[in-house]
């Protein structure tokens, strides 16, 4: 039976993987135009708090809260992106990391709104709302032979999966177009790109704010999956973790970010049996990778090798 295969614990990990994929892509997109942003944790927090507060205080439906949360983060990305144009490389990384900390400190200190470091609780949960919705139209989990909590986790997973696939599709399509060519030309040689008639201000701010939007989206979803958030969820630990997804998996190709997010979210879970030591193993793995393969696991050359392999196999037949 279906019910035997659905393990809420596994589904929850899968949901975190999906959120982490969004976060990894939020680093990847600005990077595709040469901007190393560590602001994702901050933008994630903005999305999370915006959506949480809107749904708690104004009773807005979750999907409206999530959209507004992502949009607010995206707009903040535009506002931050413009002055950041003067910065590049590590300087931009440090500035955006600082920005994230500023945002976190605001969450800690604006107690009347954010409840300070305790954080917000009682955020409407996506799964429960979906269950309510289903029941309103006369659908019961039992009709599929599912327990309530199985149904809830499954619905969350499915919604996140749709959003993630949509996002990957969007980024992929955009990349193979005039917009994507502009991004990568700026990444490879900003001055030459400008000489070719590319408005680098526009395209850099565009990619930066797209990253902010995605991080905000991921944050808002995170809030409604967890049901509670606090400033420490969006600290610089998170910023670095997100960066590592992208760098570990390979920052040159979107598939690298996806792979990095999946692999690095799974590893601590898989290594649960060695408990305390798992983060040591995680750390050692990163050190070895950076020494051996600084461009990350996946890169263009590796992918084209795969492609050729596939093609030649098809040809033999």
């Amino acid at each position: 039976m279906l019910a035997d295969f659905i393990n809420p614990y596994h589904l929850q990990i899968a949901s975190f993987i999906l959120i982490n994929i969004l976060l990894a892509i939020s680093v990847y997109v600005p990077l595709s135009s040469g901007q190393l942003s560590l602001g994702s944790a901050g933008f994630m927090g903005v999305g999370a708090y915006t959506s949480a507060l809107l749904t708690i205080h104004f009773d807005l439906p979750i999907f409206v809260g999530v959209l507004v949360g992502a949009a607010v983060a995206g707009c903040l990305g535009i506002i931050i992106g413009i002055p950041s144009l003067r910065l590049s490389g590590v300087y931009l990384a440090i500035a955006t990391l600082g920005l994230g900390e500023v945002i976190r400190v605001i969450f800690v200190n604006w107690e009347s709104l954010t409840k300070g470091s305790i954080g917000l609780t009682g955020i409407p949960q996506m799964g429960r709302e979906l269950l309510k919705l289903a029941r309103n139209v006369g659908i019961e989990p039992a009709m599929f032979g599912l327990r309530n909590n199985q149904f809830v986790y499954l619905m969350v997973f499915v919604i996140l999966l749709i959003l993630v696939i949509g996002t990957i599709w969007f980024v992929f399509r955009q990349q193979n177009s005039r917009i994507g060519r502009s991004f990568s030309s700026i990444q490879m040689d900003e001055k030459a790109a400008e000489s070719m008639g590319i408005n680098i201000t526009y395209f850099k701010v565009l990619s930066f704010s797209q990253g902010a939007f995605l991080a905000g989206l991921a944050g808002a979803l995170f809030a409604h999956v967890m049901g509670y958030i606090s400033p420490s969820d969006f600290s610089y630990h998170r910023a670095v973790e997100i960066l590592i997804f992208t760098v570990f998996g390979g920052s040159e190709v979107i598939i690298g970010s996806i792979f990095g997010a999946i692999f690095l979210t799974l590893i601590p879970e898989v290594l649960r049996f060695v408990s305390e030591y798992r983060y040591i193993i995680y750390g050692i793995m990163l050190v070895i990778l950076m020494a051996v393969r600084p461009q990350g696991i996946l890169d263009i050359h590796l992918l084209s090798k795969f492609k050729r392999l596939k093609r030649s196999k098809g040809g033999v037949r």
Partner: protein
Amino acid sequence: MVLEIRNVSKNFGGIHALKDVSFKIQEGEIYGLIGPNGAGKTTMFNLITNIFEPTSGQILFHDTNITGLKSHKITEQGICRTYQNIRLFSQMSALKNVMVGGHCRSSSGVFSSVFRTKKQKSEERGLTQKAEELLDLVGLLEHKDTLAENLAYGQQRRLEIARALASNPKLLLLDEPAAGMNENETDSLYDLIKLIQSKGVTVLIIEHDMPLVMKLCDRITVLNFGEKLAEGTPYEIQNNESVIEAYLGREEDVEIA
């Protein structure tokens, strides 16, 4: 008048890279800009494309003042350049490099790019087709899928020209296109530039290869230490005493260096 340089000066800190230089380029000309190393030739290109703003003076394109216009706007107006130290998008295929050159002659935004509207599709087809034509023009069509960084030096120079042409320039700026080319390549470069001229593009060329310059150019300006030393036809320049003394006479030294 395609381009008019009017009393242009440029100081870098204490260095006077250009001092009160003026000249005019007519429609359809191939115009040469020559002079010893450090004379300020590349600086002139950087001012025309507004990588830097001139300290004083004006630059007019088709009789409108373009001084201080953003670089990408200048390309839109119809001026495009190549670089002395090749600046291709090294990790992109040759074809994509040229397609980037067509950026300002296309308009698809995020929405139409992601949803692949009819207009976007036909625009992409047009860009691809034009890029292939230009690659064919510079003799690189068979290398269209090769990454720019994997092309030979002379091929990279020609790819830069194709990329610049993709922006439909009325004025093409070439910064030492023959540098590092062998005799055969230089000969085909001559043919290429003549062909570009025949398509109605005005060309301003910086070049140290004197036989090429004298054969190619309709008129020439000679710069020396940031100042205009002489202007005229190749014949006039070759017989100008001060040019021979400052530049042409020292050609053997240049070759050794």
